[in-house]
Structure formats: structure tokens, C-alpha cells
């Protein structure tokens, strides 16, 4: 399955780069991450508990960063396995300075999904992937903001692990936006 897209961060390229290379942040960004540690140069070991409504499954695996071109681009390789099946992905991340303290992150990758998930959960996979990515960016935006604040206040940043609840809330916002939009226009 192809995944690609882009996301605009409110921070300069260096800040965004550091953000991605912060284990703690990555742990917070990936939904349901129970554990994430650096086990070797650019190699992380992670345990994630992915939950989509009633569907939940624990994946454990490795995340490797390669082809680093600091602070412009790198390649991320994920290899996770769990009872619902396995997930294998390779993706390229490219950061480009958009000036005015903004950085555009572009990502393209190929994800393989196998096992139960692929065999009988096919109808959901595409949407699940989208949801997880939205969820990750939501968290990363907050993390970036929090970093800024913490720096200014000279304290240690405190990241929020995104929970189903938080995630729900973020999506709810989008939906409500739609509805509000309509309500507004009706009044106008």
C-alpha cells in the first residue's frame, strides 16, 4: 500500500528535524506506543498497542533511520509484528524550509501489511492508515509547540501520549468544523 502526503509544521527546519529525532517525541507520536528505546545507532525498538475502536493489537518491532541528510531528508524503515499480523514499511521523509518559521514535511512510502489484518480487515486498512497518520501529526504539532514553550520557560518538555480519547477529540473537531461551517452559512 502506498502512503504519501505532506504536513506543514510551525517551526524551522532544524527544530522539526530535532523533533523527529527525539525518541520521546516519536514514542508519543506513534499511537499506543508502550515502549520505544534507542538500541543502536539510529535503531529503535518499539512496542505499540494499536487500537481502532474495538480492534486492538500489540505490535513489537524495529524502526531504523538511514540515508540521513541532516537536516533535509532521511529514510525510515519499520518492521513490526504482532498477533494481528505484520507491518513492513519503508518511507522517505523530506523537509523543506517554507520560510517564516515553517517547515513542510513530505513523505512517500510503501507499506506491506500481512496476516489476519490484511486477510480480513482489508476494508478498514486504508482508513486506519489515514487515521494513524492524522493522529501522529496532531501529536507532533503539539509536541513542537510544547518544545518551544518549554525552551522559553527553560523547563523540560512534557509530551502528551495520544490516547484514543485525544484522537477521538481531534477527529471530532474536524467533523464539528464541517457542521459549524454549515450552521454559519445557514445563518448568513
Amino acid at each position, binding site marked *: *500500500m502506498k502512503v504519501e502526503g505532506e504536513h506543514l509544521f510551525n517551526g524551522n527546519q532544524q527544530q522539526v528535524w530535532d523533533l523527529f529525532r527525539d525518541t520521546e517525541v516519536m514514542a508519543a507520536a506513534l499511537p499506543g506506543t508502550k515502549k520505544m528505546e534507542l538500541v543502536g545507532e539510529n535503531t529503535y525498538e518499539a512496542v505499540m498497542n494499536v487500537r481502532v475502536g474495538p480492534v486492538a493489537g500489540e505490535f513489537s518491532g524495529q524502526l531504523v533511520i538511514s540515508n540521513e541528510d541532516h537536516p533535509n531528508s532521511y529514510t525510515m524503515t519499520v518492521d513490526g509484528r504482532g498477533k494481528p499480523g505484520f507491518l513492513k514499511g519503508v518511507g522517505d521523509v523530506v523537509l523543506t524550509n517554507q520560510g517564516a518559521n515553517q517547515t513542510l514535511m513530505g513523505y512517500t512510502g510503501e507499506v*506491506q501489511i*500481512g*496476516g489476519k489484518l490484511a*486477510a*480480513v480487515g*482489508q476494508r478498514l486498512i486504508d482508513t486506519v492508515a489515514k487515521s494513524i497518520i492524522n493522529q501522529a501529526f496532531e501529536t507532533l504539532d503539539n509536541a513542537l509547540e510544547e518544545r518551544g514553550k518549554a525552551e522559553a520557560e527553560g523547563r523540560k518538555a512534557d509530551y502528551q501520549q495520544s490516547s484514543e480519547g485525544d484522537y477521538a477529540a481531534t477527529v471530532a473537531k474536524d467533523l464539528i468544523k464541517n457542521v459549524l461551517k454549515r450552521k454559519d452559512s445557514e445563518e448568513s
Partner: protein
Amino acid sequence: MTYKVIGKRVRRVEDPRLLTGGALFVGDVNLPDMLHAAFVRSDYAHAKIISIDTSSAKEIPGVVGVYTAEDMGEAWEPGPPLVSPPPSLEGVTFNSCRQVPLVKDKVKHAGEIIAVVVAESRYIAEDAVEEVYVDYEPLPAVTDLEKCLEPGHTLVHDELDSNLAAHLVQNKGDYEAAKKEADLVIKRKFKLDRGAAAAMENRGIVVDWDQKNQHLMVWDATQSPIPIRNGLAGRLGLRTHQVRVVAPFVGGGFGPKIMMFYAEEMVLPWLTMKLNRPVKWIEDRKENFYATTQEREQVQEVEMALSKEGRILGIRQNIIHDTGAYDPYGLTIPLNTQSHSMGPYDIKNYSSELSVVFTNKIITTPVRGAGRPQGIYIVERMLDIACRELELDSRDVRRLNFIKPDQFPYDHEIIDQAFTNLVFDSGNYQPAYDKAIEKIEYDKFINEDQPRLRAEGKYVGIGVVPFIETTGVGPYEGARVAIEPSGKISAATGVGTQGQSHMTSFAQIIAEQLSVEVEDISLVSGDTAEIHWGTGTFASRGAVVAGNAVLAAASDVRKKVLKLASKILETPEDELELEGGQVRVADIPDKSISLGELAVLANPFRGAVEPGTEPGLESTKYFGPAYGATAFGVHGMILEVDPETMMIKIHKYVTVEDCGTMLNPLVVEGQIHGGVSMGIGNAYYEKLHFDENGQLQNASLADYLIVGATEMPHIEVYHQNTPAPNNKLGTKGVGEAGAIPVPAAFAQALENALPNYDLEITETPLSPNRLFELLYRQED
């Protein structure tokens, strides 16, 4: 014969048990102290196994054991080559790679078995399966039929130097010369994709080793109990009399239940002998998609040379056939494809190159049609395309090319699935074709209905396709018929039933010979204790091969009856007649004796049977045809398509079938209806979606779409009878016929319904999504 029952619409003797929940299926077998097996299957299509950790699975209460290939030790042995080509066949490459009971080193398709759990219940066994941890080294998957032959491509079988499983070229006449004569040469590429047989009953096996009697009892949802018995005895170092295989009522076969040996069939007998307890495994629906064989995947390049009058001068064909991860079933499917690629037509020049390839997908073996639909699809599609180019009426072109009645037996000069010459025994094609054209009211549709409906904005189209089906192949089948002292008849044959009504239609044959009621005959099929020799129910051969064996045995018993009766009634045999279970002297009604009394006299308790006579009124006979019987048929449909939503409705469906003598028309019609429903699936609903990593993406009946009652049209079935000359009954097979021409007729009708979209269909199955791509691609 005074009593006629062959050809009557006799209702089935097997039905009452099936209708009241009283018929035994393998899943119904429950034995005291029985254990349950569940399998650990690979998530990966292609991967090296680094390690298998079964420790925590073994901890689970209720788990009796967890076993891997290592634990099987000496007993670990690949399955037998089922039908590999004889060495005598010239110019054939064939690399035999057989499926294994439990994977040792490298997984070759998703769903392949890595370990087996045995527990007190299936629930617990499945709990334990989740606790077996396998460490894999994933490898790139081989999935593309064409790319996989490129040099340096990843190999499914490392011991081979390519993914080529088999290669063979068949030539008839001189295609290149014919091409030079041609007014038109067209060339197209075809993609024929995978489907599942998806019998409503999944596979299953229950095994019980009796230590004291040194006897292995096996209940197996198989189409071939006798070969399973023979094979198991061999594998387990037992004599055949130590193994009894029963295929009880089987909930649909459609081909994949022939396959032997499935890994589970190799593992379970080993388990019961090891554990000394009965063991049961019933395949679940997800496993059925991962572990049961499939069919139809081919890529073909086809060239057809024609004269401007539409005469087919020759066909050149390049077939790449996907055998999946292993090739136990040899060349049966692709040889059938070649045998059907000239359809019912008199084609003098044919050149066909076949390459069979290994991929990291589930094994392919025959599924209802077995390579035939692919052959009929390409020849009929090519004809439709040619007729458009030549601006000829496709009906005239088909009539022009049909093999004529006086050309039979027609030798095609190529080999068929039995490795013998492809010979069509008999046929009378044009009358059947004309009948179909008439019954579907072709001219009325084209001249009146279609224009009217199109004016109303309705997109309707018609498709009519003729086809042949090679049926009734050998090697042989046997039957035993015996009259019991009660006067009732017991009979047995080796071909089990998966719904083909053997217990009724075979009984009709016996009833006619012995002038008894069908209800008085009890026929056992698929129990190796009842008959020793046989192969199985497949290739549309039951009514032909087993049917004629039943006839031979029954008429032999009739002879014995008359011989004994003439002695006892002191009347010459030719003055005797059988009626209502009695043998009577023709004009002296009260001078008679019942079959029961004769049976008693034929088995004296004292004295001696005369030298040269055997005891009992019993006979076992075999039938093996020199070559098969070729059936013919025509299917026509009128469908409507909504080019906005891509939804399809089939409004009218007509079939004309010529399967020779019909034992029971009710049964024949049922077979055709069922075949058509699978064919409609193959045309528009049923596709197994594998991604480029060999992952099956629709392993459930929610995503693999079997045709339901709301998708099926009403089917009109008409018959023509051209009896098979090479068997006494004159029967030809019909079990697969229904499925064979449907995708070709569907494609023709769809193109006819959408003239203004310049639609040319060269693939099957289609789907709404695919049709959307085909119709709107210009606009992209």
C-alpha cells in the same frame, strides 16, 4: 428391458437424511476421548524460518502437544506427485516440487503450515496457536507470472535455477504457413485471474488409530477416498487393509477436495498414531482461503488467423500458467486449457507454447472447469473480436467453423490431460447452437427489444457462446452389485458423492437391469471398506466411468439371476422375465421365484456350489474408456448494465446441453444451474485478490463474493442427445459444463450492451471497479 427408469426425473433417495439433519458429514464425527488440532500458519508468503518457540503454547492447560517438522522425524515426507507427466512424453520439462506436511526451512505461501497444536478442544487449540512465536526472515515474494521468469528473479524453490515448473509445446498442422494465407491476423493478450471453489463445507478430517487392532480409521471430506487410503498406507508403512477411509456426505467438492495429499491429511494420521487418541481437524473458512487449492490464473498471448469469410485458419497461443507454490497436480489444468482452445471448431493449424510457473501463492489444482473455461474464453473472445474486424455476423462464423457430424471421431492431434490423443468421440453442434439462438430469441432481441430499450436509455446486450467439454476420462472405476437374501440390493462404488446424486442415478441403472424399485437399492459410495479399487469423483466422469461400471456389474448379476432361475424353474433363460423383484416364466405368471429366494439358494449352507459358479448373486466389474466422451453446449444471456453504477442484471439465461444419455434430467439440470452460478461468479463477482507480496486480501465470505439468489437469473435448460459411442450407457459428463462458457458469454453480452464505449474485454473476472476503469479510462 421391460422396466425403464434411466432418463426419468427420479427424486433422490439420499434426500430424507440430508433434509432432516441426519446425514453424516465429517464435522459430525465425534468420538470419545477425541482431541482437536489447529494449525500455525505463515503470515508471510515467502520467508526463511529462523526459529519456532512453542514453549508458552505448551503451557496452556488443555494443550496436549505442539509439533513442528522436526518432531515428525522420519515420518516427515513431502506429498506424492499426483499426476506428473509420464517420461515417455517428448520435449516436456517438468520440475516436480511437492507440498510438505510441516514447513522445515522456508515458507512458500501465506497459510503454509509451520506447526500443529493438539488440545482437548478446538477453542483451546486456537488459543495455543496464538502463543506459538515464529521468527521469520522475510523474502521478496514471487507473484507476477511474467516477471517471475526473468533471469535473476527471486526463486520459490532454491534448488531450481528458475521459477519454471513445466514447459511444453504442442503443434498441429503448420500455423506459420496458415498465417501466410490469412486475410486477417489478430493478436491479443488475456489475463485470467484466480477464484476459489468455496464449497459450503470446508475440508475436514477425523482420524482414529486403533492400537489393539492395528487399524487406522479415517473420515475425510475428500473426492478420492481410495487413493487417500492407498497413499496413507504407503506413507505410514501399513497394509491397505489396515487403513479404512470414509468420505461420508461431503458438502461440495468442485475439485479442490481431490487434491492429495493436503498437509493436514499427512499430519493428522501421524498424530493419532503418535498420541493413540482420535484427532479431529475441521478447516475453518479463513483456512479454506489460505490452505485449499484454487484455480484459473493464467496470462495468455493469442493469435488467430482467419480468411475473409471468417474461416479460422489457425491459432497460436502462449500460455503462462500459475501452479502456485508447488505442482503436485502436474499439467492437468493447462492441458485442459489447450484441449479447449480450439473450442468446437474444425481448426487445422494450432501451435501452443505452455510455461507453468511457481509463485508464492496457494497451489492451483482443478476447480469446476479445470482449465477449460480459460480455453473457451480465449477462443470465443478472439472470434468475437475477429467478427467485428471482418464485419461478419458472429453466428454465421461459428456455424461455418463447427466440426461437422461426419468428422467424428475427430482427432485433434494433440495430447489431452490423460496424456493420450485428444479425440472428440461424437457431436452434432449446429442444431444445438441454432436451438439456443432460437430459444433466446436472438433476432427479436437485436431487431426489436434492444433498439426499444436503448431508446428508453437502457443498456442491454446479448451473448451466445458454444463450448465443448472433454469428460469421462479414465483410468477406470469399479462397482459391486449384490442381491441380498431380503431381496434388496446393495451396491458400492469408489466415487464418493459431493452432491452429484450417485445414490440415485446409479441406483436407476441397477433398477433397470434387475427390475426393482430405486428405493430397494442401497448404494455406498466413498468407503474403502466397500470397494478396493477406484480413483474418485472429478473431471465430470462419474456418470460415464462409474456409471458404466455399475451397468456392467448389474447386468452380470442379471445374467447370474437368469442362469440360476432357469435351473430352478426348469425353464430356458430366454423364456424368463424379471419384474417387481421376481423372476417369472413369461406366460405362466404363478411360476416364479423372488430375487431374495434366489440369493439364498445361490449361497448354500450345505452341499456345494457347482464347479465354475461363484456363490451369491453378486458381481464386481470395472470400466475404463479408451478416451473420454466430449460433451457440447451453448449458453446465451441477455443482460442489462448501468454504465453509471456498473451494476449488472441478467434478465434471461438459456442453455442447450448435449451430454448424451441423461440418467436423471432433474440431476443434470441441477448440475447445470450450479455450474452457471459459479460461472457468473467467475465473470463478475469472484476474484481472489493477492497483493504484490503474495498476501491474500479477501480471505472471507464478506469480501470474496459468492453469487447469491439475488444475483442469479432464471435459467432455461434445453437438451439434445448425441449418445457417447464408446460406452454402453451413452453418457457424457456434465458436472463442470455449466461453469465453462459463462465468462465468455458475459463478456460478449457486455460489449454488445455498451457499443458506444469501444469496450474490448480480454480479462476475467471483471468487477464494477474494473468495468469503471475500462469504460472511463479514455477520460482519465
